[in-house]
């Protein structure tokens, strides 16, 4: 395809360019409110954390390569396993899928020029970065969280964990939760109100459905974790009683609140991956998604039903049978939306004209791992089996197939898929295919044997094990697999870095995708769309050529200011033109105030905490003194 002709005169494009061009230099990045820049900031930050989490994983795998290995001691190992979990979940997968992919793509996919609350978007990023640094500061100070990522009490109470390790955990996750909450509100408001005219809910890209479902799940799940962490801090710091039996509390209260958050969390992790899969599959199968409405519904249902299954993490705690069967029934129900999607994806590929380029290969790997992880997931709805195999390596295998296989593979595929859009250059296809196979083999070799050692009785979170239990060979294989996997990931990174500078220029639409992001130049201009498109189908880019539609006929250029149209929630009737705020220094300042307040809270300086709180409130005032309409 040739470059898209801009249907508006060069003068107006120039004017748009002038209005939307960001401040140059580092300051421009620090004060940016551009969703694309924030998306890239998220991407780089999350990849750093991914690397850290990966190093932690490899260290643990080396320690477990053979029985009675002494590479690290139990204390370090406990910190590694906790930080690995926290990093991968809170500092890598959620922020990369929502923060990086969501931020960059959602406005482009729905035909908007930015997110609904651009400054809050920047605040989300800075808070996220701050929470990550906060948690890793604990590592640097030798006090990283060490009670496992689900941090069960009483192990996490002062009595058994007197250092500040757990305080880093609790405060760090509250901070992280604040960032995710702000991001979730922003995504929903954006998807509800900023869709291009004509993009009714049924014409919305499935990726946006996934992001919408995730955002709602975050909003409804995070408060439980936040509250749990608040309770924990109140008990650790002020001697309140929530979790100790002597004071009338209950250790299971922690587990309830944690898993009310924690199970939806699992779906928060995989849903964006579903979204990425449903973006890549139609493009490379060269046909529309099979059963589009059912897939959209399935994405929402997964997030919704995910709230009703939390107690299946507690099947071994001795709850009444009646509770168990109730939640087992719900856990079985949650399988159905996933099977709907799996077969819809597969049928789309099988009934289309598929081209197995690298992104689709990664989606193929994703389907394989997701199905395997899903099948073991179904096994855990069988209560007696769950009660036998929970907290063993079988579970570790199960959720790594889900989290690495099913969530990270689409992320990797998505990196290749949208790389040309972001950089304007193609990645190296042959190297990409090699990198897929290395990663695929590495993943299988790392996580598949874990099923077997789990069945052989190896429990999770052990820093070492005895020889002679039949575990040794499998553990060695897992470690070799881990390094193979790391090699695959480095190949991908190498490919992307090399292609960034040497890749072939690709034009706006190298894969002939169906959604709106492929209608704009690569990389997209600061204002995204010179003319706000008018949408008539779920695949506007295809229908533009297929049916002779003209996306630009609406004629919304909006070159009078920093503007984007706002539409009605259900059917996207145009309602008003919004003035968007431009760059602002206040988000990063506010994030700094908040994180300093948290640091002081951790250090026990309540008064200084209050000072930073007041400074934060003043910052918020300064932020809102600048009203977009006045510019």
């Amino acid at each position, binding site marked *: 395809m040739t470059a898209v002709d801009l249907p508006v005169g060069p003068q107006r494009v120039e004017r748009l360019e002038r209005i939307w061009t960001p401040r140059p230099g580092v300051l421009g990045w620090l004060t940016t409110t551009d969703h694309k820049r924030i998306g890239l900031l998220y991407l780089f930050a999350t990849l750093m954390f991914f690397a850290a989490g990966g190093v932690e994983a490899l260290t643990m795998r080396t320690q477990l390569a053979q029985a009675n290995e002494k590479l690290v001691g139990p204390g370090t190992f406990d910190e590694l396993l906790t930080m690995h979990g926290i990093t991968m979940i809170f500092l890598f997968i959620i922020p990369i899928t929502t923060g990086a992919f969501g931020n960059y793509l959602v406005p482009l996919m729905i035909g908007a020029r930015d997110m609904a609350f651009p400054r809050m978007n920047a605040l989300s990023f800075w808070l996220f970065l701050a929470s990550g640094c906060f948690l890793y500061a604990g590592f640097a100070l030798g006090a990283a969280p060490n009670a496992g990522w689900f941090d*069960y009490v009483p192990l996490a109470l002062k009595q058994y964990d007197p250092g500040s390790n757990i305080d880093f955990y609790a405060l760090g996750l509250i901070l992280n939760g604040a960032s995710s909450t702000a991001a979730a509100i922003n995504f929903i408001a954006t998807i509800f109100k900023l869709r291009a005219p004509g993009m009714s809910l049924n014409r919305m890209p499935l990726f946006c459905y996934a992001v919408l479902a995730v955002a709602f799940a975050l909003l409804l799940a995070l408060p439980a974790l936040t509250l749990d962490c608040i309770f924990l801090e109140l008990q650790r710091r002020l001697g309140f009683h929530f979790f100790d039996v002597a004071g009338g509390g209950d250790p299971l209260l922690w587990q309830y609140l944690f898993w009310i958050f924690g199970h939806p969390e699992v779906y928060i992790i995989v849903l964006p991956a579903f979204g990425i899969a449903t973006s890549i599959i139609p493009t490379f199968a060269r046909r529309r998604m099979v059963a589009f409405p059912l897939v959209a519904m399935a994405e929402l249902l997964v997030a919704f039903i995910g709230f009703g299954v939390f107690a299946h993490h507690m099947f071994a705690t001795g709850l009444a049978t009646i509770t168990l069967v109730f939640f087992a029934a719900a856990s079985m129900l949650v399988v*159905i939306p996933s099977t709907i999607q*799996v077969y819809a994806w597969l049928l789309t590929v099988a009934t289309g004209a598929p081209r197995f380029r690298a992104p689709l290969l990664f989606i193929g790997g994703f389907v394989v791992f997701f199905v395997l992880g899903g099948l073991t997931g179904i096994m855990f709805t069988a209560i*007696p089996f769950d009660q036998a195999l929970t*907290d063993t390596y079988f579970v570790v295998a199960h959720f790594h197939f889900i989290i690495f296989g099913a969530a990270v593979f689409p992320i990797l595929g998505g990196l290749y898929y949208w790389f040309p859009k972001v950089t304007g250059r193609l990645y190296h296809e042959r190297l990409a295919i090699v990198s897929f196979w290395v990663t695929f083999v590495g993943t299988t070799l790392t996580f598949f044997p874990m099923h077997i050692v789990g069945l052989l009785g190896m429990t999770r979170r052990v820093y070492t094990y005895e020889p002679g239990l039949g575990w040794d060979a499998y553990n060695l294989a897992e470690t070799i697999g881990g390094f193979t996997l790391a090699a695959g990931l480095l190949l991908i990174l190498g490919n992307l870095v090399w292609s960034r500078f040497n890749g072939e220029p690709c034009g706006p639409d190298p894969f002939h995708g169906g959604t709106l992001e492929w209608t704009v130049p690569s990389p997209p201009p600061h204002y995204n769309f010179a003319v706000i498109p008018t949408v008539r189908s779920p695949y506007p880019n295809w229908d533009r050529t297929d049916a002779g539609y003209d996306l630009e006929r609406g004629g919304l250029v909006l070159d009078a200011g920093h503007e984007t149209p706002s539409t009605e929630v259900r059917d996207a009737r145009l309602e008003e033109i919004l003035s968007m705020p431009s760059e602002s220094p206040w988000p990063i300042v506010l994030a700094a105030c908040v994180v300093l307040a948290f640091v002081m809270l951790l250090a026990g300086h309540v008064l200084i905490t209050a000072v930073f709180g007041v400074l934060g409130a003043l910052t918020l005032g300064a932020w809102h003194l600048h009203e977009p309409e006045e510019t």
Partner: protein
Amino acid sequence: MKRGFFQPRSLVAGLIVVGLAGCGGNQDALHPASGAERSIADLWWVMLIGSAIGFGSVLFLLVLGWRRRGRKTSPPSNAKLETTLVVTLGVGIPVVVLLSLFVYSDVFVMRSTAAPTPGSTRMTIDVIGHDWWWEVRYPGTPVVTANEIHIPVGSAVNVVGTTADVIHSFWVPQLNRKIDLIPGRTNRVLLEADRPGRFRGQCSEFCGLQHAHMAVLVIAEPRARFRAWLANQEKPARPPATGEERLGLRLFQTQACAGCHTIRGTTARGTIGPDLTHLASRGTLAALTLPNTPAALRSWITDPDHAKPGVKMPALPLTGSQLDALTAYLGSLR
């Protein structure tokens, strides 16, 4: 030995998990030694076959897609047919399968693994989790031991689990499912071995530094041997016989040992560490971390942190001869 009703193992084992069922280890959930665990293992094999079929259907469609990679354009689609296919494959069949699984596992299998109600078994054993060892009590007798649970073969034993500190989880894979030991709660699990043997188990809920070294051994014995064992355990500790042993006992009572450990029949009444009344009758030390040999015992007393970093037991500043005496005395506690 009674075999389970459903034994498709021979079919699948070689195919899918090479050598899985065969390879050693006495902590193997698929080597059941009880009716309850056999039903769990059967459940696993049934689910494995079901999963293989489900995964097969997915692979079939993937391969179908791969074979169509040469197509130039996609053929016109039939939306009705596609939706019907998705609903059938994605809703209809899974619903039937899941309902069957629900009834099979969560109604029938669960009955055989259910917690015994109090008083429903002839024998009860209290298991109390500690950081990082297991206290084992035989109610109705003065017997208190640690990390090794003797049970008679063929008789149902109600294990009543509690904890003295954090959450632990009691799991002996060859005998039954696991049960968490939670402060403020009393949980139960049934142990009923149908053959004699030594069945290893391990704490399954992360409990801190030495979670990895918190193992337990269930020894199922014929009834007569079990009775003999119990009778021996009921006796107070054997008095020291030699001068060295007497010195050992005196050291035990005057050094820090007695603050944490009990030896029935002496003045040592500590309750923080394991009861050592019949230490020498046990096969291992420190929750199966070390073999119970004089050399290992000696090194354990000198530097517990070496084998089990972070353990609560302090190192004792003893001279060589004092150590000899102490190990000699402890080694005599049969």
